[in-house]
């Protein structure tokens, strides 16, 4: 039994979305998958879909995008859905090997983890593990 039902990827790079789509569909065929190249559209869709979001959703969020950066998207999400952490689990998803991006991800309470590109089966398993432990172990820290 998977700890989440849906994965959303927000990345302006179509090739990235293609690779993710293939890997996820192949290894987690039961999970719903949605990819956005435009962060504004992604935000709109998430806002509309929140009413029937009884399912838990994992978001893979690119950091470097032209109109909104990943951090800005995160900020919009926080303002839009005050307790979005209950239904969404965000992973910053970047090709960056810049140490600050990783540090910033770890420091941000809204971010579960930092995943570097490309997405692989191992990394997908890591996400599942992380989500599992989140569901079973009660959170100690806030």
């Amino acid at each position, binding site marked *: 039994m998977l700890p989440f039902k849906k994965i959303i990827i927000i990345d302006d790079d179509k*090739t990235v979305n*293609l690779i993710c789509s*293939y890997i996820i569909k192949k290894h987690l065929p039961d999970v719903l998958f949605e990819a956005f190249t435009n962060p504004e559209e992604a935000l709109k869709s998430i806002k509309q879909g929140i009413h029937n979001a009884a399912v838990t959703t994992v978001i893979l969020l690119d950091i470097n995008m*032209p*109109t909104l950066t990943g951090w800005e998207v995160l900020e919009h999400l926080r303002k839009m859905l005050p307790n979005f952490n209950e239904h969404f689990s965000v992973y910053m998803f970047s*090709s960056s090997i810049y140490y600050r991006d990783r540090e910033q991800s770890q420091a941000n309470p809204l971010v579960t983890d930092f995943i570097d*590109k*490309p997405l692989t089966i191992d990394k997908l398993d890591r996400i599942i593990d992380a989500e599992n432990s989140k569901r079973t172990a009660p959170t100690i820290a806030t």
Partner: protein
Amino acid sequence: MKKPYKILHLEDVQTDSEQVAFELKKNNIYFEILVIDSLVAYEDALDNFKPAIILCSHSMPALNSIKALEVLKEKKLEIPFILITSILNEEIVMSVIKKGADDYIIKDRLMRLPFALVNSIEKATHKKDRKKMDVAAFEKEVSIKKDLKMLSEKLKLASKIVGLGVWEYNVADGIFTVDDTILQLNGVTRNAFNGSQLFFIKMVHPDDLETFKKEVAEGATKEIYIITFRIILPDKSIRWLKSVVKHQRNKGGQIDRIIGTSQDVTEHKLRELAIKESDEKYRSFFENSMDGIVLTIPNGTVVAANPAAQVIFKMSEKEFCTCTRYDLFDYHDQRLQPFLDERNKNGRATGEFRLLRHDGTSFEAGVSSAIFSDANGYQQSSLIIRDISTRIQAQQLILQTSTALQNALEDVKKILSSSLDIICTLNDSGNFVTISSACKQIWQYSPLELVEKNYLNFVHPDDVEKTIQMKDSVKNGNPVTIFQNRVIRKDGEEVPMLWSARWDQSAELMYCIAKDATDKVRFEKAFEYERQRFKEMFHQAPSSIAALKGKDYRFELANNNYLQLIGKTNIIGKTLKEVLPEVEAQGFIKILDAVFETGNVYQANEMHIQLANGGNDLLSDLYLNFIFQPYRNQNCDVEGIFIFANDVSERVMARRKALTETANLQSILNNTDISYILLDKHIKIVAFNRKANENMLAVYGTNLENGQYYPDRLDNETKQEAKGSIQKVFAGEIISSEVYFPSINGQPRWYLYKMNPISIENNVSGVCISAEDITTKKEAEIEREQITSDLLQRNNDLEQFNYIVSHNLRAPVANISGAVSILNNKDLDSQTKELFWNAVSISVNRLDNVIQDLNTILEIKTTQHQQKEYVQFIKLTQNIKDSIAKSLDEAGFTILTSFDEIEGIDTVKGYLYSIFYNLIINSLKYRRHNIAPVLSITSRKIGNSVQIIFSDNGLGFNAEKKKDQVFKLYKRFHNNIEGKGIGLFIVKTQVETLGGHIEVISREQEGTTFTITI
């Protein structure tokens, strides 16, 4: 260093033993291990290896854990034993534990081993230690008991030797037992003793009985107490006893036994009393002595000083204790050393010399000192001191008084002898008793010739009667002041005399003064007196005085001051030219000539004169106040000249020096580049230097003047500020500020203003304002700040560049890696394969683009010196328009240009082309589709630089949010329009390479304006 744990490991499987060793090493346990698997080796190891712990596998072909434990028991060895078993079989474990194993570890849970090992070893060590301790304690007890027995026997012997009697009182049965010594002490035989304590209490001296009872009662609450008292022995002699009483209590805390010792302390007590008595005597003497007594020890430290000494030295007892005798003696007094020598030689000495008080004053003292040993045998010395300064003062006073009296007497004698009048005393019968020497001049008789003769013998016969009458009247108490008669001189001439007289009843003498009524004598005497007075005045006058006689100015007189002034002696009779040849050339002879001829006084102040007064030919400069006063002979002709001169050289020199210093200071002030203005306490200008006035002229166009109210010299704005600052300075603050003047003589200048209070005796009496031109320093500072900020900016840019480049290089690489890993699956259908090969291809292209971009950027950044040429803006724009004419036409894009103000610049053409091209393309790309797109390009001249402004009506962006991002590499704001985010980065880099900068303003849906300044 810590010793390694010695581990004996019973194990036949090598990998297992290695794993154990590895686990221990991993946990930083320091150990030495021996691995064996046979019984023989085991027994041998126990004897020779002496392990601290045994680890044992449960079963081995030649040995098992149960056997191993049995061997251990046989050998009576207590070594911790841990079972290491591969399976958890409770039965086995229980049986091994029962046999004596300390712990067990399952082989695949070896991580617990390090803890278990250390724990078991420590437990075993504790056990061993405890055992050792028990044995030691027992041995000690036995030894103590033995010692105690010996001790008690020794004690008995000792008590006998010192005469210590022992007694015991059993409270329960009331039996009082005593030893023989007690009976001896009390002078009774055992037969006489009745076994009751009352027997002894009766012997206590009646005077001590009360205290004795009281102390016993008080002692009952203590465990042990000491009591000293007198007893009266049967032979009526009195002895002192000292008893030590000890209570023994039962478990309930009540006293059941009292044991005690008694000792005869009579001798001791008597000695103590004697010492106390002598001590009291000494104390009372010490405290009440009128003489000061100071006790010191050999190193000089004062150990005691009595109240009298405290008064004499004006020191408290405490102050005495911190000083030594060296602080008390005045070592400059030569009488001291002989005194000390004598005391060291004979052990005692007396003397009179000066001593020092605490406040530094000194006084004369009579001191006797002795070296003695105190009761403890320590050497001390005493000083007994009597302040004799009053006595000496009195002696001196007497001496002074007698001298004064003597002087007075001399004076009287002088008066008597120098008096022009005859002063004499006559006794009752009219005989001369004393008579002054004036009688010699007036009457020609010497005093000796007259004494004891009757005065009437000398009176003119005609005047005898009235003289007798007068004498009787005087004797009756009517003093007479003027009474005239005639006296016959020795040569027979008669002399008219004027008398005054009075009768002194107590001395029975008549005091008389007789004046020569002819006056001749008087005049002679008066002349002599005047002459004397002149002489004194002449010699003692503070001025230099000389008299020159005749036309050749011969020295007739010269006082000491004059001789000192000219540095010569033996000048009387010599001419001025001989004595002072140097003065002629200085014009003094001429002055004297003028005085001599005209008879007019010549006076000059602070006149400069050079005199060879140093005993050689060297001239020294002198300044003199002169008076040349002619004096005349009886015929009123000028006979000579008096010279009065006062040496005022010092005064003149001092004044000149002060003037020079002021002038020097003034010249420093006027030549410095710092301006100074001094204000008095009314904020009025007191003084200022040249520079201050120059500054005032340059800033306000007015001159400074003394006496002006300073703030009035400033403009209104500065005035208020200056007033505030000056108030602060008057409150004691020092103010310092850097002030910027946009234009002084056409140049921007920076000044450092300082306001310092001028204080006289802690009161601020004025303000000193200084202003220093620090423009050069300030400019350098500003330039430095600019360079620093530029460097910071560059560094930031570089970091950003690095980040972006690494990100953009990594992104396509990540994609290629992702796609290739999918393509590695063998069971892919051809459609999927194609899809991912395509993805790889796109990513490879992107990677190539990034590398090309990088190359372009690095080329700009590294190319420093390009050939510059004149570039016309209008031509440049036209070239670009031509090259992209098709795209412009399709978009209906209009470019308006206005290059009238400046048509072109000298620059690197390629860069300017690229800048224009990128900005035009940018406008074209981000145009708004619902209106006609227009871009206007304008050039302007601003000072020495040129501005080119690109202004469009395109999409624009939120400049507030994105301003700092717009020129960054790979930054894009639009999703729907193709773009790499490199164009503006290149523009900015090129503008900066050309030494300019670019700024942007933009509003969303209104347009964007780029301003380039080169």
